[in-house]
């Protein structure tokens, strides 16, 4: 019984970080209808950012997260103008292929530079041991930092002018333009934010697990599942979706082989797509 509970709690802690990664993906979709297939590569970029800042420069792991987020934002804005901007308003396949190409370029570059060797960021943080089960400090901290970032994102989107502009563009780009909102800049801002979220989730994952250049694929896949659970274009839903996915993983694994987890996840993915196309946590759109 304690084992099941421990598994669920741990699943929720890690799931929240999946949610953070998915928030970036869903934000970009919500604002500009672009499915960013370079999201996995950006998660990996966050991992490497943390690795270099903490291991080589000696910065404490968690202190290295803000610079990673800022750098991720800058890269995201740059990437928007290079690869995405010209695809806005064109058939979805165009932006899909553009971001896929960026993904391939980044993975190829990464593989050339680092190979596919495993990298490890040693983080020593006391955990909580309960009935023989340990919730590691890194998992708890990752969930706390995720909560903080999600909170800041909420404040940004709902309490600041640029945030409100992003929501306005997401809601109706033409109307936003007619009201004097510089939509091109807003789109680049949103893309930068999405990438910053991907990088921050990558940095948090790097504090928990070793990683390689190719690790992004698995997390990108999870981000898609989470996005569908939470509802496309709904950042808050993505966070709940991540927690729900973690909960599901935690619930499934004590009762069946771990190999079955991804099968269950994708069955749920298909069911949600069919039965709840707006997602499980997209209450406003369901009305």
């Amino acid at each position, binding site marked *: 019984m304690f*084992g099941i509970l*421990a598994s669920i709690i741990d699943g929720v802690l890690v799931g929240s970080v999946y949610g953070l990664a998915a928030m970036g993906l869903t934000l970009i979709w919500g604002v500009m209808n672009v499915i960013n297939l370079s999201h996995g590569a950006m998660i990996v970029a966050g991992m490497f950012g943390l690795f270099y800042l903490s291991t080589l420069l000696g910065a404490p792991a968690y202190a290295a997260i803000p610079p990673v987020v800022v750098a991720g934002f800058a890269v995201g804005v740059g990437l928007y103008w290079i690869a995405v901007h010209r695809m806005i308003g064109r058939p979805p396949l165009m932006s899909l292929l553009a971001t896929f190409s960026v993904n391939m370029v980044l993975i190829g570059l990464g593989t050339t530079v680092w190979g596919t060797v*495993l990298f490890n960021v040693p983080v020593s943080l006391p955990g909580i041991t309960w009935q*023989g089960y340990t919730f590691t400090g890194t998992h708890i901290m990752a969930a706390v930092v995720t909560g903080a970032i999600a909170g800041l994102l909420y404040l940004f989107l709902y309490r600041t002018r640029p945030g409100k502009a992003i929501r306005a563009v997401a809601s109706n780009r033409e109307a936003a333009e007619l009201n004097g909102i510089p939509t091109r800049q807003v789109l680049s801002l949103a893309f930068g934010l999405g990438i910053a979220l991907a990088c921050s989730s990558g940095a948090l994952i790097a504090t928990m697990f*070793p990683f390689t250049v190719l690790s992004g694929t698995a997390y990108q896949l999870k981000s898609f599942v989470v996005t569908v659970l939470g509802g496309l274009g709904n950042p808050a839903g993505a966070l709940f979706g991540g927690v729900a996915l973690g909960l599901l993983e935690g619930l499934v694994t*004590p009762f069946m082989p771990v190999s079955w987890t991804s099968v269950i996840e994708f069955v749920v993915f298909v069911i949600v797509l069919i039965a709840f196309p707006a997602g499980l946590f997209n209450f406003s759109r369901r009305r």
Partner: protein
Amino acid sequence: MNKSWLIAAAVLCLAGTPAFAADEDTLTIGFTVSQTGALNLDSIAQLHGFEMWRDDVNAAGGIKAGSKHYKVRFVSYDDQSQPGRVQQLYTRLIVEDKAQFLFSPYSSGLVATATVISEQYGKLMMSIGGAEGKTYQLGNKFLFQTYTSADHYLSGAIELVKSKNASAKVALVYSDDPFSKAVAIAAREQAKQAGLQIVLDESYPPAQTDFSAIINKVVSSGADTLLGGGHYPDGATLARQLYDQKVNLKWATLLVAPDSPQFSSLGPAAQGISVPSQWAPQVKYKPDFGPTPVEFAKRFEAKYNIAPGYHAAGGYSGGMLFQHAIEQAGSIEPEKVAAELNKMDVTTLWGATKFSTDPKSHGLQLAHQMVLTQWQMKNGQLVKEVVWPLAAATAPVVYPYR
């Protein structure tokens, strides 16, 4: 015709020339390496072993076959750790690159794939890194295995655990790949025969990145011993999470990953973890030919700035075995070389080597033996020591491991 056309024509002519066309005094050996993908660390270590052997042979004037000396030339491609690539590339190595002999790729799954091609074309292939025994029980004629078969990977660990705790509770946690499954199937039986209790038997996908849930299952099972793992990325991640989650185990043996010198980058998470190893630099074999294990290790470290693991030693030895067979045959004709390999019974830095000549299990390794090594802290440094069998031990075992 202007200059640019001339240059283009010259480039085309050069491109049309086979890059590795075999000439009379050159022996072309083809193989794929997992330069990228999950298997790259071990596969590249194996490549370094191949390269060091080639450089040694060529520096000594080549392989002597009768009155001729053949310089060794490699043709290799990145298989990206993908069986599909292996199938294409081994066909290319044989058909287009005219490789005369083949080294296998690294890992059981890829060896099984490459074998389909090498057998189809009747090319001799030295299997290095393919431990799963099933591949060698399909009636192959041209495949020769250097590794101890996967069935024996965890035998030493089980014997050691039994000697320390006859009623140990074992969690068998292994990657869902052909090699690790073959190891687990044998270990399951061996543990039962040793009187150990298997309290958890769980496989995981090779790409698993988070072991928290599995580790919680290990804790729930009450296991005091963990046997399993797979290859480097999953094994290293599992070791780190076992440490992070403070699992109350007395012993942990993981496949493959802890054998890599890079495993020590896990720091305290590496301490006490043991690994069945095909070879260790400290083994005391007296070779019939070639360098001693100590000489090899010293030269390898000088060349690559890293201590050799068994993948590197396996690569070097695979080359030496081919070389020995060719020299004994006095010819590079495949039939004559195969005949020499079939009757080979030698000891090299790798240990004893003898191939099965039974048509049902032709090429299966019969003589080579494994050791069990453990990461131990010595003077503030993590070092790998041979702890089993006792006759080969270089340090006493640390049990419980933490």
